[in-house]
Each structure stands twice: as structure tokens, then as C-alpha cells.
């Protein structure tokens, strides 16, 4: 009997998992003992870190997209459809077209995170962001016209994708305004929900002196509650008001409603074993990437490494072996420190990051990785 592995989601986690499975189970797939199917509602794979560069005119939203089919091993069956129901008892998925039903023996859910600016009144009307193609392009136009005034970068939603991005955007904007000769006419303020500038203390310690050196203001314990689009005022739960001329926000995020409806977790984030990525509330289900509620960043590198673990485990299960692969929380992030220098951090569940001084070489490495990322999606790098 053929063992059916179904992957929901065509982002980093889904693509890497599919390709790793195709590689590991090559013989079983060839003989018809195993099928690997990936279902995604977007025919394109999107590499979201590209969007950071769009507001500064360094990339276009199109640079972030490639057809999923081009990235998947030919042995992986691709279905462009939206899964609307996961029945973990019957081990069956229903698709949006109303007539496609997929049965699985092993399920990988990698549905990612999405933006929910509507959770904060006024934010969608007057707040910019760079977490999607339209938002990043709109912000590029707004920044091009912005010659003086107060730019506020507010981290509104936590958890959010790519915890380095708001730090990078702020430092890049500072240098970009300097390069344009208008920094003295622009005030920059960064806000963060907790008592420091970043969730990870070593990153806070790296940020604080740099913000002070570059005249970047900051507000901590600032949890944006509402935006007044007419008066251009951002108000926090803690009662602080900030007047702005240009508001760039990291919007609230949610997971896919599929997760909640399938009973895999709350608020769209699935409850999983943080080492095995097995769903706590269902059998034969793994959840990885942004959709998994694990105590590390919602970052591409997390999805990438977790996908390798999940592929190893499923391959072992199929061969009747005891799965031993585990995920230790490994996370790797580049952090741009301006327009031409960067640093990077590597950490896991047990070891906090060590943040080194930025340099040009790491910035070039980040740009080079952005070009070679597609090899990661293919499961090669």
C-alpha cells in the first residue's frame, strides 16, 4: 500500500520538507510505495526577506517570487489549491474547489503567518509596512516623497515574522536619509512592546548604543492600541501618544484559521513538541515554520532547519525505524546595520546569540544569500 505524505504550504518549510523527502525516499517514490504531494494556494513561492529592500529601491516585489513548480523535485506532486479543512481523525483534507479530497498517512502543516493590521483600529488606513508586496511598494513611494518630519517604526505585533527586520529597517532608513542629505530634517522613533529594544537581550545590547549614536529615539513598553489616521497619532496601551508624519508598523500577525479549526492550536499557531515538531493534539501530524508555536523566531532559517528534522523523522517512520532526528531551535539571522554593513546571529533553544560588530563582508554575504536562497528552497543549501 502506498504511504501518502501530504504537505500543506509552499513556503520555505513546505518546499524544503518536500524536496528533502523526495531525496531521502527516492527509491520508495520510484517504486510507488510512497507519494509526496504538496498543496499550496499560491503558484509562486515567496522569499519575504526581499521585501526589506523594496522601500529603499534596492529590490522589486517581483524579485521575491518564483514558481513553486520550478523549485520542487519532479517527484513531488504539486497541487495548486487551498486546503479548507483538516480532519485529523479521518486523516483527510478538503480543498476549496469543493471536490478535491486528499487522504494522508503523514501530514506536514506549513501554512505560515499572515498579517492582521485590522486588529489595531486605524492601522490599515494610515500605517505602512514592508511585510508584503503591495505594502513594500507603497512604502517605497511614500519614502521617496518623504523629505522631512517624524518617521515612527512601531513593532505592533508579537510574535511577528523575521524579528530582525524592524531593527534592520530602522538602521537602514537612518543611513538612507543621511545618504540623501536629509537626515537632519527627519526624526526617527522606534517603539517596542517590552522593556527593551528587542526580545533577545544580546540584540538589545547591540542595538542601544547604535541607536544612541545615530540619534534614533526609542520608546519601550509601547504596545500600539490605535492609530488616528486624521491627526496622525499612534497611541499605546500604556497611554503614550506619538505624533508621526510617516508610520511604518510591523502589523499584528495571525496563523492560518485552518490550524485553529482543525483543533491543532489557538490563534492559528499549532501546539507542537519543540524538538520533534509533532502536533500535540493530533497523530501523524507535524507542524513547522511560522505556523508552529515554538519558543524561537518566526524566521525562514527556523522553517528550513525544522523541515530537515521533519523529513528525517517521516523517512524513518516509513522505513519502520525509530525516528531520532530532533530540532534544537537553531536559528540564523542576518542583521543589516545600515545600507552597507551587517552582522549575523546564530542561536538555539539553549544558547542565546552572540552579536558581533557589523562589517561590510557580512552585508555582502546577506546579499549573496538572498540570491542563492532558491537553492535552500530546493533543499540543496
Amino acid at each position, binding site marked *: 500500500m502506498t504511504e501518502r505524505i501530504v504537505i500543506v504550504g509552499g513556503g520555505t518549510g513546505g518546499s524544503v520538507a518536500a524536496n528533502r523527502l523526495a531525496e531521502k525516499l527516492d527509491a520508495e517514490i520510484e517504486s510507488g510505495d510512497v507519494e509526496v504531494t504538496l498543496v499550496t494556494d499560491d503558484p509562486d513561492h515567496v522569499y519575504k526577506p526581499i521585501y526589506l529592500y523594496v522601500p529603499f529601491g534596492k529590490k522589486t516585489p517581483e524579485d521575491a517570487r518564483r514558481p513553486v513548480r520550478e523549485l520542487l523535485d519532479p517527484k513531488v506532486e504539486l497541487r495548486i489549491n487551498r486546503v479548507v479543512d483538516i480532519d485529523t481523525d479521518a486523516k483527510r483534507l478538503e480543498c476549496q474547489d469543493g471536490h478535491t479530497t486528499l487522504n494522508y498517512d503523514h501530514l506536514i502543516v506549513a501554512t505560515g503567518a499572515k498579517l492582521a493590521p485590522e486588529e489595531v483600529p486605524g492601522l490599515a488606513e494610515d500605517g505602512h509596512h514592508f511585510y508584503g508586496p503591495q505594502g513594500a511598494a507603497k512604502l517605497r513611494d511614500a519614502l521617496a516623497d518623504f523629505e522631512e518630519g517624524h518617521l515612527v517604526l512601531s513593532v505592533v505585533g*508579537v510574535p511577528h515574522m523575521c524579528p530582525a527586520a524592524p531593527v534592520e529597517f530602522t538602521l537602514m532608513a537612518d543611513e538612507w536619509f543621511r545618504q540623501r542629505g536629509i537626515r537632519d530634517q527627519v526624526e526617527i522613533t522606534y517603539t517596542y512592546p*517590552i522593556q527593551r529594544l528587542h526580545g533577545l537581550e544580546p540584540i538589545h545590547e547591540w542595538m542601544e548604543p547604535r541607536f544612541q549614536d545615530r540619534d534614533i529615539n526609542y520608546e519601550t*513598553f509601547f*504596545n500600539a492600541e490605535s492609530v488616528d489616521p486624521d491627526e496622525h497619532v499612534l497611541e499605546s*496601551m500604556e*497611554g503614550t501618544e506619538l505624533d508621526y508624519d510617516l508610520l511604518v508598523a510591523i502589523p499584528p500577525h495571525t496563523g492560518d484559521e485552518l490550524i485553529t479549526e482543525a483543533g491543532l492550536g489557538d490563534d492559528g499557531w499549532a501546539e507542537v513538541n519543540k524538538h520533534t515538531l509533532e502536533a500535540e493534539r493530533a497523530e501523524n501530524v507535524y507542524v513547522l515554520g511560522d505556523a508552529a508555536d515554538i519558543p524561537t523566531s518566526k524566521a525562514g532559517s527556523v522553517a528550513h532547519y525544522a523541515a530537515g528534522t521533519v523529513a528525517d523523522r517521516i523517512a524513518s517512520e516509513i522505513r519502520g525505524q525509530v525516528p531520532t532526528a530532533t530540532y534544537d531551535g537553531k536559528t540564523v539571522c542576518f542583521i543589516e546595520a545600515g545600507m552597507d554593513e551587517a552582522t549575523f546571529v546564530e542561536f538555539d533553544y539553549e544558547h542565546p546569540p552572540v552579536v558581533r560588530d557589523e562589517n561590510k563582508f557580512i552585508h555582502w554575504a546577506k546579499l549573496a544569500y538572498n540570491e542563492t536562497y532558491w537553492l535552500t528552497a530546493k533543499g540543496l543549501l
Partner: protein
Amino acid sequence: MSESISADVTIDARGSACPGPLMDLIGKVKKGDPGTIYKLQTSDRGSMEDVPEWVEKAGHELMETVEHEDHWDIYIKKTE
């Protein structure tokens, strides 16, 4: 003691490292109504500092903290 406080919302952040418990609390308080009582369960010692600090800054009420063998229960009431 704590047994007399009846929480409307329990947030189990045990096993989560700083700033996870505080983030979880802020997220729930943001969505709740004034008067709601939250019980934050945390095993991270840092919560003993950052949670009271945020509760004071945000003007909510820190009702009680109860120490258990492997975690703390922090009771918070959301004000207007």
C-alpha cells in the same frame, strides 16, 4: 491566598523563556475587557521583574504572585 482569586483567563507560559511570558500576557490583555483577571503561569524568573514593571507602566493591577515548586502564578487585573 491565590485560591481565592478566580482568574477569567489562564495563560500557561511555563517553559517559555524571557520575554515569552510577558509577550503572551500583553497579547491576551490587549484583547481582553477591563476587569478581566489573568493568571500568568511562568517558570522564567525574569517574569518576576518584567511583568510587574509592565503592569505598573500600563496602569493595570498586580493582584498577587504565588510561588509553586517549579513555576509562579502571577495574577493581574486589567483596568480601564
